[in-house]
């Protein structure tokens, strides 16, 4: 992950809290390093911790038919993993897997719930975040139905870039196929096309975004939509 800044950026949800409330919460959090492919929780399991990524990212994946799966959310420094806890539900309904190694604030479920109870600003902020997530999920249902693989891949690469804070990252075709819920051949075709338009460079699993603007133009509208919604609701 080439260009991550040395000082980790704070999580944006936490940044949105008033100073005192943020201090209070952070005093109860511990900063942890998440490793690639770490599983934070699985469907049906009790969620033991809430995570606020700093420069890591976490994929939320819905299982299906025992094999084919689909990523339904990608959480980075704009969000939190474990939002079920905000809704008073302790059991997970997705897989949460670390997709981008890096730092995150972690808080155990009990402390998180206590904090949520006493901290009205946190409650308000996280309810709004849930609203954003609902909008993204609704959008995902339409996106997976109507948008072509190439546009979805472009969007996904941009989302990953935003969360990794880097224009280069490591990603196999198999992993991409799994995230996008398409065949490997479909991903290869889409990646080759983006490469031939000089938008990305792809070799041996290493992806570099060469032309951000161009890639944004190639992405489906869902990318811009997600950004706008987040900015208008959270900030």
């Amino acid at each position, binding site marked *: 992950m080439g260009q991550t800044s040395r000082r980790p950026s704070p999580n944006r949800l936490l940044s949105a809290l008033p100073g005192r409330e943020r201090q209070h919460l952070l005093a109860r959090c511990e900063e942890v390093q998440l490793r690639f492919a770490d599983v934070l929780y699985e469907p049906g399991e009790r969620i033991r911790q809430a995570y606020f990524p700093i420069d890591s990212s976490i994929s939320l994946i*819905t299982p*299906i*038919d025992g094999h*084919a*799966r*689909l990523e*339904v959310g990608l959480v980075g420094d704009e969000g939190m993993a474990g*939002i*079920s806890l*905000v*809704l*008073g*539900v302790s059991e997970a*309904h*997705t897989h949460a897997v670390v997709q981008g190694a890096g730092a995150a604030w972690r808080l155990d479920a009990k402390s998180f719930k206590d904090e949520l109870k006493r901290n009205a600003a946190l409650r*308000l902020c996280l*309810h*709004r975040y*849930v*609203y*954003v*997530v*609902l*909008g993204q*999920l*609704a*959008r*995902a*249902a*339409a*996106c*997976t*139905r*109507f948008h072509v693989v190439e546009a979805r891949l472009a969007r996904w690469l941009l989302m990953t870039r935003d969360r990794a804070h880097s224009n280069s990252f490591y990603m196999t075709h198999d992993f991409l196929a799994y995230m996008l*819920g*398409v065949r490997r051949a479909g991903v290869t075709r889409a990646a080759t096309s983006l490469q031939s338009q000089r938008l990305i460079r792809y070799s041996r699993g290493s992806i570099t975004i060469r032309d951000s603007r161009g890639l944004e133009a190639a992405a489906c*509208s869902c990318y811009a939509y997600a950004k706008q*919604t987040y900015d208008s*609701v959270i900030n």
Partner: protein
Amino acid sequence: MALRHDHNQNRLLAALSPIERERLVPHLKLVSMPLGKVLYESGNVLSHVYFPIDCIVSLLYVLEDGASAEISVVGNEGLIGIALFMGGETTPSRAIVQSAGHAYRLIGRQLKDEFHRSGHMQMRLLRYTQALITQMAQTAVCNRHHSVDQQLCRWLLLSLDRLSSSKLTMTQELIANMLGVRREGVTEAAGKLQKLGAIRYSRGKIAVLDRQKLERLCCECYAVVKKETDRLLSPP
């Protein structure tokens, strides 16, 4: 009408505590929900929320080019307008009546005030939100991986659970919009299910003949959503 309809027919309203009931019930207004009525469009500011009692409302996501896909169905287990208490004000989806009936309508402000009392009602509404999240995630996956036939089965079963009869009145166009497919796709899928003896389909009326068969033909998505919804909405 007052004899036939009762707010307790909606599960969220039935679960109100006595004091919540005292505060909210006087403000509930019974409204008729005709087939195809649009309660709101995406981007609208919500002024009211609706608690269905015997109708079904479909939430559709509409893309910029007009293409739409259903993201969830809401019946007497839920309410329409959760954006309001989650602090978003506007709604990302279109809400359209998919099966005619009635609902109780409440001024948004009143629900918001009740929500912010942080009582029993808030907990119920949050758990319902989680049920909706599960349904949306499952629908996204289903749209990606399952055939139109399977999706039609899922949609029929979710609808049936929210109705007291086994007959649905629907236009083909409405079903096509729900499933995000062409009308021909719906005709074909419905034709198949009819041939297998699971449903009878004619001029926008669907009668379910063999529910078990429908469940067998369906993808797992129906069972996942149903189980999760029942779990989240039953008293903890």
